[in-house]
């Protein structure tokens, strides 16, 4: 777009942290705020006579008003099940099934509602469904744009096509259908530890044996094997909805990721911290489910679940992750906080994926670094002639696409990995360690 036309000026502003970008970012954050927290604080207490009249709000009747404290309690379950219509919301809507949905001890039971099909249409107007629809539209429209923009690059077309398909099927239509037929709502495109509650023993009764087994199999077998063979890209830029939105709708802002070595230091601390918390929480939940009844263990498990939902899922992945697209680039969540990305990244370092660098062909132009959404300073490897595997790399392939000298290529190769595998290389990942911004080899 030509910068001197009004449209060009506006686009330039929007894509380069101008006023319009900040405005959009604030709007997005506000949107997420309302989406996650709005209902609890903004719906006025309505008068009632018994609990039944508060079902529609998901509250209980206390002293003549529908009280939302209990709603807040339950609501925080929602937070940690991002973007889904929660079973108890469904339960509240359907009235009759509310007791079946939430057991007295707070665990969730499989929805046993046998009401007529007509009732089920209600949840199509539900805000999570609308959010899901918007999200899917973002991926489809953005994806179509990507397929056009990079029409000369078949890797981009195929990758984007798969992301669009996975989003419309596994991440949108299938869960709605499952709900419609009173099956547990399950997103086959998400896995533990991203969808951390899939391996939370308290949900096992709700999901049923089949899905729980699949959850274990997917997270502990499919994920590592696929990642060893193809790198984390098979998930992060081919399947995952977070990555999907970043690579489609987020395209105009991909270059905003911070490439400084300080940003990299922050990334390493932040992402492995979240991963640690996710692993620890899961362990705690198992402990509280398996070990003999202990009220302090139970309280700790409930506490981590709430806080994990509030901080990691709602704030970091939703409001910050997507809300900051126009300011911090598209992968703020994926790069700094996603426990799945951290987990996959470590496996990727052991596997076959790497970015191959042609020797001495790089002209240090920096386009690859600029357009790397993960903030990897690709140029620093390319100009030193070093092929590399960075834990953060999601294999989007854009560095190879934009390189004007054809220096880079994504590949899976059984050849010896060019990077050493030591604790130091895990922490520093290359020459670009804490103390120096210059490679050992220039």
């Amino acid at each position, binding site marked *: 777009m*030509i910068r*001197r036309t009004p449209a060009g000026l506006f686009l330039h502003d929007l894509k380069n942290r101008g006023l319009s970008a900040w405005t959009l970012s604030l709007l997005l954050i506000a949107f997420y705020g309302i989406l996650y927290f709005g209902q609890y604080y903004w719906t006025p207490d309505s008068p009632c006579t018994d609990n039944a009249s508060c079902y529609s709000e998901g509250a209980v009747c206390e002293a003549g008003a529908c009280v939302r404290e209990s709603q807040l309690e339950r609501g925080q379950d929602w937070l940690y099940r991002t973007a889904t219509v929660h079973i108890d919301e469904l339960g509240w809507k359907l009235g009759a099934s509310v007791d079946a949905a939430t057991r007295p001890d707070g665990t969730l039971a499989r929805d046993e509602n046998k009401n007529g099909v007509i009732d089920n249409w209600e949840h199509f107007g539900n805000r999570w469904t609308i959010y899901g629809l918007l999200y899917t539209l973002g991926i489809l429209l953005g994806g179509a744009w990507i397929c056009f923009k990079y029409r000369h690059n*078949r890797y981009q077309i195929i990758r984007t096509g798969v992301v669009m398909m996975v989003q419309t099927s596994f991440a949108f239509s299938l869960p709605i259908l499952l709900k419609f037929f009173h099956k547990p709502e399950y997103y086959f495109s998400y896995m533990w530890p991203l969808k951390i509650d899939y391996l939370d023993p308290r949900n096992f009764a709700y999901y049923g044996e089949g899905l729980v087994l699949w959850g274990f199999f997917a997270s502990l077998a499919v994920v590592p094997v696929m990642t060893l063979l193809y790198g984390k890209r098979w998930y992060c830029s081919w399947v995952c909805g977070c990555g999907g939105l970043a690579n489609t709708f987020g395209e105009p802002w991909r270059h905003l990721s911070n490439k400084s070595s300080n940003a990299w230091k922050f990334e390493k601390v932040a992402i492995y911290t979240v991963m640690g918390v996710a692993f620890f929480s899961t362990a705690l939940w198992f402990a509280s489910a398996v070990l003999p009844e202990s009220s302090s263990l139970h309280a700790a498990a409930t506490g981590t679940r709430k806080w994990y939902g509030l901080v990691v899922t709602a704030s970091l992945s939703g409001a910050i992750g997507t809300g900051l697209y126009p300011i911090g680039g598209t992968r703020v969540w994926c790069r700094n906080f996603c426990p799945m990305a951290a987990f996959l990244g470590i496996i990727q370092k052991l596997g076959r994926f790497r970015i191959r660098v*042609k020797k*001495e062909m790089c002209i240090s132009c920096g386009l690859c670094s*600029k357009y790397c959404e993960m903030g990897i300073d690709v140029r*620093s490897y390319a*100009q030193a002639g070093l092929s590399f595997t960075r834990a953060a790399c999601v294999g989007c392939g854009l560095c190879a696409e934009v390189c004007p000298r054809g220096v880079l290529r994504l590949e899976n190769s059984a050849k010896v990995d060019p990077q050493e595998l030591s604790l130091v290389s895990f922490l520093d990942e290359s020459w670009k360690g804490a*103390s120096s911004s*210059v490679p050992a080899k220039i």
Partner: protein
Amino acid sequence: MKIVIVGNGVAGVTCAMTARQRDPHAEITIVGGETDYFFSRTALMYSFMDRMTRRDLEPYERKAYAEQRIALLRDWVIDHHADAKTVHLSSGTTLHYDKLVLALGATPNRFGWEGINDVKDGLVHFVSMQDLDACERLTPTTREAIVVGGGLIGIELVESLLHHGVKVTFLIREPYYWPLALGREEGDIVTEQLRAHGVQVRYMEEMKRIEVDAAGRVSGVLTNKGETIPCQMLGICVGVRPSIDRLKAFTDPPQLSRGVVVDETLQSSLPDVFACGDCAEIQPIEGRSYVEMIWYSAKRQGRHVAANLFGDQLRYAPPIFFNSSKFFEVEYTTVGEVMSLPEGTPTLFRKHPTKPLCQRILHNGDRVLGFNMLGSRWNHEILERWIRERRSPAWVVAHLADAQFDVEFGRANLASCIQRELPLAKELAR
């Protein structure tokens, strides 16, 4: 040891970084007059096209220089005393050195066109950061521009101007685009690209006179065909030459010819004075002197000088030539002897019937000599190896796919290329 490096381009900075790795205690200073920090000259066009900010052009983080204890001075070196071992800066500072490295880079050529002395504004080159400033300043008031010189820098300037919605006329003296490196067929593919993007390409047409308006700004160009083409901006991209003009005024200049004359250890005629990069003219003991004006050579020479500063006496030898470029969407890779081969050299020319995709394999009947590949990506390391291994043309054609470097799923379809024997036709003007 005190090392003073003049020029903060890729040659100078690579030399400094390599020297630091060699010696943790050396005192290293880089003096550069153009910018505060080393930037990638090759990426000027991406900054002009708004794809990158100026800061993005810097290959190293700014703090790297402090971490490596390399002092940066933004200044011009205007004099040199060989006996005292000092250089003098335009600010009046004097620096003493034990070893001096000249990495001065290149300056755009200008010839004595009629009217050039009347030009006060509107004339640009596309080599330095100041050129980029001028281009950005002039573009908003430019509807039509003329770019003179059908080489790599010229086509980059053309592409950048098009991006800003400027109507561009491209004046090229030769009969087709870049005969220095491309065969006729490749040149025609580039011409198609240029025309498809709306460029008025005029071959065998040269600038005769520059016209200016009342304020002294370029207003048009008279060509050797007698036509005056209006323009508000004139880009002159007719090659570069080593930046040795300042050296001529030095008290003790090293021996100069086309560039700073150095031997194979990259040492100049003066003791402890070295040169590398675009400004160095290398004079081997036998054979003709040469100047290498490409990025990776500047880097190699910079590393090389760094070793020789410490007394290594390594002799510089250029590798089998390779390079790559991009003409709009069409990528170009070349390996081996292509530039220097005479007209009529036998080639296997392979072209896709519809796409801008072709490969030219130059050979002497017996073994391959070079490659000119357009429209897809190639691994020059493999092509280079085949030249070294003296592979036959038939063997190379059979194994060509092994050297492809296209994106996954996106391999160019070599099978559909039609192959024929074709002697290299350069058709150079004059």
